[in-house]
């Protein structure tokens, strides 16, 4: 068995709306698989199907060889999930929340207590273990929910927007934890809006839009595939608007970002020459001039726009 997750022809409809439309993909064992898409693209629906929360209308999904529809308990036993909209039990203490999850997964008492102590110390929640989760900040609650997911030492960990709305330090702690558990052999399925996070964490990325998979590849390959998204970024000593720059047939799009102008092109050399000529003719000083490879965000926006037919 090569794959941790296999999805074949998965479909889910809500009335007349198709949330997930015959999607296919595999997640290899021990990889961090990013799942990107705009709001309403079908990310959360896909995760809910894969974690056995809702049933698909068609297709199959297997987790470590266990069909989520035919063997839901076996599949759920080896996964853990940090749902996007989930909460810990606010009327239970951090410790009681962890013990509950341990009991629901059949983790022996001594083992779950040991793991809980370890996790709470790692996430700097140990001193608050006897406090009700009601009084926790958003960051503390999110760390507690992650602790609850990790207590079971899952083979596959589903994370739906795990760092959304968190401060920089908490987000970094969670990203470091994801890396560490992945190094120790956990397969990670990560849904996120944060392109930089996906770029830095994921081995491969799937982009989903309107319930369909628009692309699957590793972040670097996705970026390289979009040669038209290369860009030249320039700033001058005086303010220059996009319209003032000379027309260049190789520029597909130009936009002003702060004091810089970004010109998308598949011929950076030609664009640089025209910028230098323009600066000389206007007696402008070039403050900075950089050629940029497409970012994952550029690729993402391009794919989403292509789907919409923009």
């Amino acid at each position, binding site marked *: 068995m090569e794959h941790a997750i296999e999805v074949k022809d998965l479909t889910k409809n809500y009335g007349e709306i198709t949330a997930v439309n015959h999607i296919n993909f595999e997640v290899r064992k021990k990889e961090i698989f990013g799942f990107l898409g705009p709001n309403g693209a079908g990310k959360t629906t896909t995760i*809910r199907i894969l*974690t*056995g*929360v*809702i*049933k698909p209308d068609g297709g199959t999904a297997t987790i470590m060889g266990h069909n989520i529809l035919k063997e*839901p*308990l*076996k599949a*759920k*036993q080896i*996964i853990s*999930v940090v*749902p996007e*909209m*989930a*909460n*810990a*039990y*606010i*009327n*239970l203490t951090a410790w*009681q929340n962890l013990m*509950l*999850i341990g*009991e*629901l*997964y*059949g983790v022996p008492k001594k083992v779950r207590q040991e793991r809980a102590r370890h996790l709470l110390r790692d996430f700097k929640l140990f001193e608050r273990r006897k406090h009700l989760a009601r009084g926790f900040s958003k960051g503390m609650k999110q760390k507690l*929910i992650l602790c*609850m997911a990790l207590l079971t030492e899952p083979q596959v960990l589903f994370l739906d927007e795990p760092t959304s709305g968190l401060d920089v330090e908490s987000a970094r702690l969670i990203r470091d934890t994801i890396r560490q558990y992945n190094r120790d052999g956990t397969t990670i399925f990560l849904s996120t809006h944060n392109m930089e996070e996906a770029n830095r964490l994921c081995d491969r990325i799937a982009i989903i839009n309107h319930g369909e998979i628009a692309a699957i590849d590793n972040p670097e390959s996705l970026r390289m595939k979009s040669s038209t998204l290369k860009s030249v970024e320039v700033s001058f000593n005086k303010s220059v608007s996009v319209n003032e720059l000379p027309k260049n047939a190789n520029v597909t799009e130009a936009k002003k970002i702060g004091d810089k102008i970004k010109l998308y092109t598949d011929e950076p050399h030609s664009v640089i020459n025209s910028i230098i000529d323009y600066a000389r003719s206007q007696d402008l000083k070039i403050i900075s001039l950089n050629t940029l490879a497409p970012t994952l965000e550029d690729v993402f926006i391009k794919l989403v726009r292509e789907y919409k037919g923009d």
Partner: protein
Amino acid sequence: MLEYPFLEQLKRAFAIAKKNLRIYYKSGPVLIFGLITPCFFFLAFFIGRNLPIQQLFTGLIGMTIFFSSMSIGPAIVPFEARSRTLERLVSTPVSVWALLLGDVIASFLYGLLVTIIPVTIGLVSGVSIIHPLILCLGIFFAAFCFASFGILLSAYPPTDVPSTVMMTSTLVKFPLVFISGIFIPIWEMHDWQRILASFSPLTYFTDLVNYCTQGTSYYSVFVDFAALIGFTLLFLTVAIKIHEKTLPKRL
């Protein structure tokens, strides 16, 4: 861990019950519908009517166990949906039946504990219990039956508003109190009333209490127990079927 799936699931059901008791036993709807409502009902209908103590005891214990055993169950699922803990729970390796059984056990234990109060009041007031063992068994089976009924009442509509479920269940619970032999003993009812009463599980419990305290009952003890067990199985089976369909709609 999954070598004995049934026993393992049963253990997980108890874990859910423990969680429910910790969280919900002192929540507003549970206190109102589980403790205050039966007290007011009792005061409204029995005080000043010069009824024999044995009949008062039947009414008090019947209403207490009925309301208290049904107070936690209907609130849990909508509460969990609203507080966004249901999705996490549904993603754990716990069957829907075990999840619901956990809710039933919590309601059942709460009903048992609260019912100790009227039993104590009855004993202190001089109620003589002729068949104490049968009364204990009756309380046990009735509490489980009513707790299962509560879970059934929470199955539909698939809402995340606890008050909606509590109101719906109240609409069902109140009429049942009036037709179950609490206010009019079954043997004093008209035929059509008796037929109506036979559809209420509370009828069989009040009949059992009458047997245990007064030595007379309309149905045989065997019929009373069989009815309570039959209703329990029916409520649980239907509740599991409906919840399996409605749970995803609450997320």
